[in-house]
């Protein structure tokens, strides 16, 4: 094991420059790096690669939906046996849908988003030299990379990738002969997910321990930026819910390969009686959704944290209701463990249980509403600077409103009877967690690009182009899907041609496909901007956005250990923007109150009697009669 460059992760005094302890080779610096910033970059670039692949898969199946009666010889050239005669094979269509969903939910929005920004920002924003365990942190990336390779390798096997949907409900996923996508591809999916969950747990444990143990001097919990709060609570969610999925997956592997019957009973497949009895496929759904629903918040909470930060910085205002924002995150985290049953209203589970899950599900809308209103209130009377990051954060709030409101329909068990597994659901979750979380991720990339790629900025104009095309197209893609669902169009159908009743949606499907293609093309602007800016982007100042948080006090050039010498001490909360009495419109967290007497407010000295006394002395001298008791 290489020598760790970090000697003391705490807030203790470092009089020496950390850099001189490094003897990094190319391999230890860029490949098996233990520096959280490099690991963040590795997560981001792998996540972007996976996102591009998932996007291309979605374009393939969207073409099938738009032109169900046409053949494309090019597809046969590209996909071979998966598109005989130039049309997608129906089972391969299901595989495309499955892998698109799996990659987007787990590999892009969980690992790509949380892995990138938790890694980059937790140590930098809490004032730590690295993660609690840099070696385990490195392993978390490499397990994620391994999981990605295994998942993608399933495209190169005879029967193709897994096809039972990203929720892999047994018996379809448990019986290798049930369909092509249930064979080796399904096994690879399960192995990949076990690696992925191992990665996720290693990352999560690091995030939690770093936040709890390695905050710099003065950084108490109520001085942490909302990003850190969001990453911290997300990590707790992951640590508590992913192991349940591992248990579910291991039992599924047993059913598939070792003849057990945890999820199987009374099965006749292709006219052959199978020797399973006593199991229940519904057990798997309980285990799956015990992770699956928190997973929705694992995906969206980091994006919420990022947008809170970006909105405050670019509105030049404190985030409105900081405490309420934290309590809402805690509320969402807690409630998200007891709502999973709303995915199972029509499985035949006890209707009383359905009623209970409906109540818990709809309650979770309250903290979500508080967050939305607080974001809007933060923009009220702000001095809004439209950086691309700010636009993507506004886009997130807009999607969160549109998609969140339709959750009220689906959380209501009686309404869910008619909407379950239709395009209404597809529209709902693609807006509320798909588009919103992707926008949060993009907001983060634009905002923290100078911290990711030492001292470079992305081009703003290309960012604007990227935002507006993507934002408009995302609505054009997903808004009409609500109506398709309300007409009873089921999701995951290979073609609607078998149903004359759905023929009138063909033109809408074609329109959606073209909007998706334009949205995909807009990502070329992002990819060009991203990779070009890594090498040729403008060089900003150390704190290009005039932000208050600790990461902008670290030097532009990356050093393992983040700060040469001492880690800065924190004195105030992270949202002192446009404080009356202060010349600049921001006061960094590292600025003591003794340096900002003209802008101090009485509540700044809560739990700080020495500070209050100092303040009163100053007031007595400068503004007699205005002392605070």
């Amino acid at each position, binding site marked *: 094991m290489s020598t760790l460059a970090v000697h003391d992760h705490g807030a203790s005094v470092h009089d020496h420059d950390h850099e001189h302890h490094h003897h990094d080779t190319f391999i230890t610096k860029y490949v098996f790096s233990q520096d959280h910033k490099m690991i963040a970059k590795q997560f981001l670039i792998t996540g972007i690669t996976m996102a591009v692949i998932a996007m291309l898969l979605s374009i393939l199946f969207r073409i099938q939906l738009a032109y169900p*009666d046409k053949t494309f*010889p*090019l597809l046969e050239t590209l996909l071979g046996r998966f598109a005989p005669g*130039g049309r997608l094979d*129906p089972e391969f269509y299901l595989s495309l849908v499955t892998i698109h969903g799996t990659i987007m939910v787990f590999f892009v929005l969980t690992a790509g988003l949380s892995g990138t920004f938790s890694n980059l920002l937790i140590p930098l924003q809490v004032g730590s030299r690295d993660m609690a365990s840099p070696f385990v942190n490195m392993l978390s990336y490499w397990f994620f990379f391994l999981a990605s390779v295994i998942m993608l390798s399933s495209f190169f096997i005879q029967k193709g990738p897994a096809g039972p949907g990203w929720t892999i*409900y047994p*018996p379809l996923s448990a*019986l290798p002969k*049930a369909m092509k996508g249930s064979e080796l591809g399904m096994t690879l999916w399960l192995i990949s997910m076990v690696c992925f969950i191992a990665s996720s747990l290693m990352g999560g444990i690091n995030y939690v321990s770093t936040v709890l143990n390695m905050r710099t001097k003065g950084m108490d919990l109520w001085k942490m930026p909302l990003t850190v709060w969001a990453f911290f609570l997300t990590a707790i969610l992951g640590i508590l819910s992913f192991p349940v999925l591992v248990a579910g997956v291991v039992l599924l592997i047993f059913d598939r390969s070792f003849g057990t019957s945890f999820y199987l009973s*009374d099965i*006749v*497949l292709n*006219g052959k009686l199978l020797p399973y009895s006593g199991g229940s*496929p*519904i057990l798997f759904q309980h285990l799956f959704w015990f992770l699956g629903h928190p997973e929705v918040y694992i995906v969206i909470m980091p994006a919420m944290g990022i947008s809170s930060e970006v909105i405050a910085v670019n509105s*030049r*205002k*404190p*985030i*409105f209701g900081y*405490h309420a924002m934290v309590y809402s995150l805690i509320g969402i985290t807690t409630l998200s463990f007891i709502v999973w049953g709303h995915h199972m209203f029509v499985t*035949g589970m006890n209707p009383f249980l359905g*009623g209970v899950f*409906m109540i818990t599900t*709809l309650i979770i809308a*309250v903290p979500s*509403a*508080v967050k939305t*209103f607080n974001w809007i209130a933060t*923009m*009220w009377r*702000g*001095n*809004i*600077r439209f950086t691309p990051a700010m636009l993507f954060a*506004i886009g997130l709030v*807009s999607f969160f409103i*549109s998609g969140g409101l339709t959750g*009220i*329909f689906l959380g*209501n068990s*009686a309404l869910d009877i008619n909407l*379950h597994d239709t395009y209404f659901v597809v529209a709902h979750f693609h807006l509320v967690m798909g588009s919103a979380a992707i926008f949060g991720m993009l907001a983060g990339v634009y905002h923290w690009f100078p911290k990711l790629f030492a001292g470079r900025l992305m081009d703003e*104009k*290309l960012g*604007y*182009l990227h935002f507006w095309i993507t934002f408009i197209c995302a609505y054009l893609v997903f*808004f009409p899907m609500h*109506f398709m669902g*309300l007409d*009873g169009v*089921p999701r*995951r*159908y*290979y073609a*609607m041609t*078998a*149903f004359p009743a759905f023929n009138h949606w063909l033109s*809408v499907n074609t329109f959606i496909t073209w909007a998706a293609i334009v949205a995909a093309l807009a990502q070329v602007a992002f990819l060009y901007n991203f990779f070009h800016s890594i090498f040729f982007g403008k060089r900003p100042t150390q704190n290009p956005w005039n932000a208050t948080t600790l990461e902008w006090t670290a030097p532009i050039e990356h050093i393992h250990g983040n700060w040469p010498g001492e880690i800065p001490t924190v004195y105030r909360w992270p*949202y002192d923007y446009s404080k009356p009495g202060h010349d600049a419109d921001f006061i960094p967290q590292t600025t003591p109150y003794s340096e900002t007497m003209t802008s101090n407010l009485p509540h700044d000295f809560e739990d700080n009697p020495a500070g209050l006394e100092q303040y009163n002395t100053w007031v007595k001298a400068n503004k007699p009669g205005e002392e605070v008791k």
Partner: protein
Amino acid sequence: MGFRRLIDSKKILSLFAAFTLLGTNTLMAQTAAAGTDAPVDKGAMWLGVGYYVLLFLLVCVIVAVVGKILKIYDLTLKMQGKKGIQWNNIIGVFCIVFLVAGLYGAYWSFTEQGTQILPESASAHGGKIDMMFWVTTAITMVVFLITQVLLFGFAFKYRGSDKRKGYYYPHNNTIEKIWTIIPAIVLTILVVFGFFTWREVTNTKEVKGDINIEITGHQFAWELRYPGKDGKLGSSDYQLYYTATNMLAVSPKDRNSYDDLKADTLVLPVNKSIRLNIHAQDVIHSVYLPHFRVQMNAVPGLPTFFKFTPTITTADMRNRLDDPNFNYLLYCNKICGGGHYNMQKVVMVVTEAEYQEWLAHQKPYVNDQLKKEWQLAYGSQVKELTGKRVALNN
């Protein structure tokens, strides 16, 4: 500059030219009927891939040119001692244009696509679900409008300016309490409303006259079994499944089976309480009848059911829709394999008299072939069991 060298490169340009020429018919989409005598829809013919690539490159060039013009304009302004392009103003205006266009788009979508939603409810409980849907829609629409208008309105109104400072306003407990309590109250109303409707829909009380119908899903079809004159469905035992004759694993040990009927179409008498007993043989399927607001999974090893009362006959619905070809359909709504998208069943809602007449013409499930199979399998035990009851149905 690397990019300029790339554009100037003759090799690259030659490659593009060759690529475009390769965009021949082999890369084009064709109608599925191509190769037959069916006329080809020329209007829908696709152009070569090279055409689309060039089109994309053209758009990129236009974007780059516009970008350069803007940059030059910005520099010119700055050289004149002016401020340069005020992007905050431009984006602020974009936000308000998006808000207006977006709200109009949503309105248009509701008036165009919204007219095709929620096909008229044809079941007794469907009306209650629909009412709850419209109440929820009204509430959410109000919230949607208010929040989106505020979001983009604030983005426009408070767009950045060098002359202003943001308003330091970190919290206001009263406001925060208000927008916690109001959503909580509204959601409580929806919860109570939903809870009672849910309770009513999932009511399991046995009602005299319930018609029990068994529906079984397998890859990729639905099988139906109706009770005979005794009104009771015989039980089944999946372990008895051994031939295509006894696909539903009906048990010879239950006398109620002997007069059961098999059917190809799901025929339902209007205004009668129907209890669909739902089974699956291989993987999970889902019985989905959108017109009746009915959906329930078919799970192997876990029989489920859904009770509902159809209220509009197929003939009535055809008249209302002025569509003589209209049929209610039953879909499979749970991913079940390659044929999932085509797993449907026609549903006919008829009058009581028509139902009885239709029932009289259905064939018994336990037919001669099945009897022979049972006798081979169970010998005298089954002979004794099947005896007279089977004869009653013939």
